[in-house]
């Protein structure tokens, strides 16, 4: 069997997953300029929600989105008011360590409550394999990809055409200027955080059928999410999608030709190159790294 079609299709599907996981981060990082080190843990909690709903009530994670959406919004709001808002105007150092502390708390709360065991949400149709362009994909993978694509488009439209979306983009570009033109940046920051949390909440539900759930699963995804976000450019939904695709291609296709042992070096080197040569990434604001404040 010719390897290339499978590699490409697998990479595309994985790219969709990576971008889904990273979209929330790009919003938060882009608009708030806060590096949310707890991003992986938000994803982990959402995966546990999916596993829990399925184990206890037999609810499919796709149906479970109806629960995940309000839960994520609520969770995002709570974390914002309780943990993030007090440090929004503080030095980077304080912000970084606040989210790091949050990450430690969430990881170990999961460990404490649910033990370190590995749980796999096993859908009855998880084994259904579809053939697309000579490559095999499973149904949950297709659904995750479809939702990722649809969600990115929806987010892009929302950012482009709604007031709040435009306000967010403005705040991402230049917070001081945004305040000057009358945008309530306070509300925008909160909205960015909450919407970002919603994105990662949805992502977790969709990838729960694909990967095992355990307290440190966030570690598998958080660094990748940062690579995607930097590559794609802060605050850009399309950037997250493209960045996700690029990283996934390096991962899968690179992994095939270079070997899985060294593939991470591939995308980290790309990451470093982007940071050193074009920190704004593909679609980010040029000079964004100067607006570090």
């Amino acid at each position, binding site marked *: 069997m010719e390897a290339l079609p499978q590699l490409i299709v*697998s990479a595309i599907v994985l790219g969709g997953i990576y971008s889904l996981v990273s979209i929330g981060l790009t919003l938060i990082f882009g608009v708030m300029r806060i590096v949310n080190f707890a991003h992986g843990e938000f994803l982990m909690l959402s995966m546990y929600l999916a596993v829990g709903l399925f184990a206890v009530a037999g609810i499919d994670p796709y149906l479970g989105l109806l629960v995940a959406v309000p839960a994520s919004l609520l969770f995002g709001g709570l974390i914002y008011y309780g943990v993030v808002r007090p440090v929004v105007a503080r030095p980077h150092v304080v912000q970084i360590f606040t989210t790091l502390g949050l990450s430690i708390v969430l990881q170990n709360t999961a460990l404490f409550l649910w033990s370190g065991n590995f749980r796999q949400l096993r859908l009855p149709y998880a084994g259904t394999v579809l053939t697309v362009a000579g490559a*095999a994909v499973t149904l949950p993978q297709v659904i995750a990809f479809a939702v990722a694509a649809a969600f990115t488009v929806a987010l892009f439209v929302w950012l482009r055409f709604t007031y709040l979306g435009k306000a967010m983009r403005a705040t991402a570009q230049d917070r001081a200027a945004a305040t000057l033109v009358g945008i309530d940046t306070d509300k925008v920051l909160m909205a960015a955080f909450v919407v970002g949390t919603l994105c990662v909440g949805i992502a977790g539900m969709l990838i729960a059928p694909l990967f095992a759930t355990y*307290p440190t699963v966030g570690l598998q995804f958080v660094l990748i999410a940062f690579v995607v976000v930097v590559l794609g450019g802060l605050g850009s939904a399309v950037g997250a999608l493209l960045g996700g695709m690029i990283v996934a291609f390096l991962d899968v296709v690179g992994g095939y030709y270079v070997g899985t042992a060294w*593939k991470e070096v591939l995308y980290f080197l790309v990451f470093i190159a982007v940071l050193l040569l074009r920190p704004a990434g593909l679609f980010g604001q040029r000079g964004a790294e100067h607006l570090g404040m």
Partner: protein
Amino acid sequence: MTSAFPSRRIARVAVLVTALACCAAPVDQAVGQNQIKIGILEPLSGPIAAEGRRQLNGLEIVRDIINERGGIAGKQLTWVVADAPDATAATNEASRLITQEGVKLIAGTFSSSLCLPASDVAARNNIVYWEVSCVDPRFNARGYKNVFRSEIDANGFGWYELEFIRDTLHKKVGKDLKDLKIAFVSEDSAYGQGTTEAGKKRAQDLGIQVLSVDFYNRNAMTDFTPIILKLKSTQPDVIISASYTNDAILFWQQARQLDLNVKAIVSAGAVGFGSPDFGKSLGAAAEGPFTLLEPSGLNPKALGSLVAGLELEIAKRYEAKYNERYAASAQLGAAGLWILAEVLKKTGGDLNPDKVRAAALSLDIPVGGTINGWGVKFQDNGQNAPDRVQHYILQWQDGKQVTVWPERFAVAPMRYVPLPKWSERK
């Protein structure tokens, strides 16, 4: 930029200073006359917390049984548990157990990166270190007199896997050794590397063709497509896997997705394919893989009746108390502690290193004579002789892992050789 509440700051400082004071204050070191107190060091937090916890559970069940049966030389066995998520913690906690808790023997530790530094501390302070499960080959190669390990090392794992292939599997697959093609797929931590290197070496010694050796980082594997595609084109008969659990689950799911069919897959150890979580996560798809592990059920005819009864007892209690199958790392802990108890019975409960060493080296139990069907014969370097530490191949059948090899210990015949093609599975 000052906080408006200086009292909060003072409170903060006070809390932290108190914490300092707490850690400096030695705990009451008096041990009851009727007690033997040891230290237990396991990773209870961090990435391997699940297996560390299981090992501790196994230790607890055996301790309870020992104590109910009169303890060791009439004294009850008690312990202090310490968490060691990394090497620094392992060093610190080992020191703390020795100094603040006053233990004279430390047991543990599951992971190679913990057992080496912790046992260093123990050895240099003349404390006995009793390792029940870490597999680093260097553990007993450092010249220490008071460092013991009841389980074999990673070299032994690799060796046994190939022994299974040599003794039985290749015949069931229907190929001569020299015609057999195998591939290694391995995570790259100390456990994976050690097992795989040892297996590869033995395979080459046996004249078996090794088609490929693929290492990967289990925290960075979100897609096994590259490896699986390569295997599909090279078509090995048997895959030898060394994995942790999240990657084993992903690998096997994707093998189904991409229709990778091999005649058999063999792995080693209490994680990955051998973990109870594997079966729970994959249901019917988990049928068939072989794992080198502690036995799950042993043919009572191969054991002394004493041990057979004991095995059943431990399994029953474990499942009742922890609500999961007694397996893997728990079994390693159980066997290790039982053997330690045998040694301490000989010393009359004395933890003096020279006495413990003499007693340990004097034990001579044949295979089948103690828990897990193991035997005991400690070599001069403190390592339990590999040919006594009988290992078994278990196979996932009907949602459980059952012992299928060596045949005289088996509780069920081998099935699924060759593994049914994915398209034929329900």
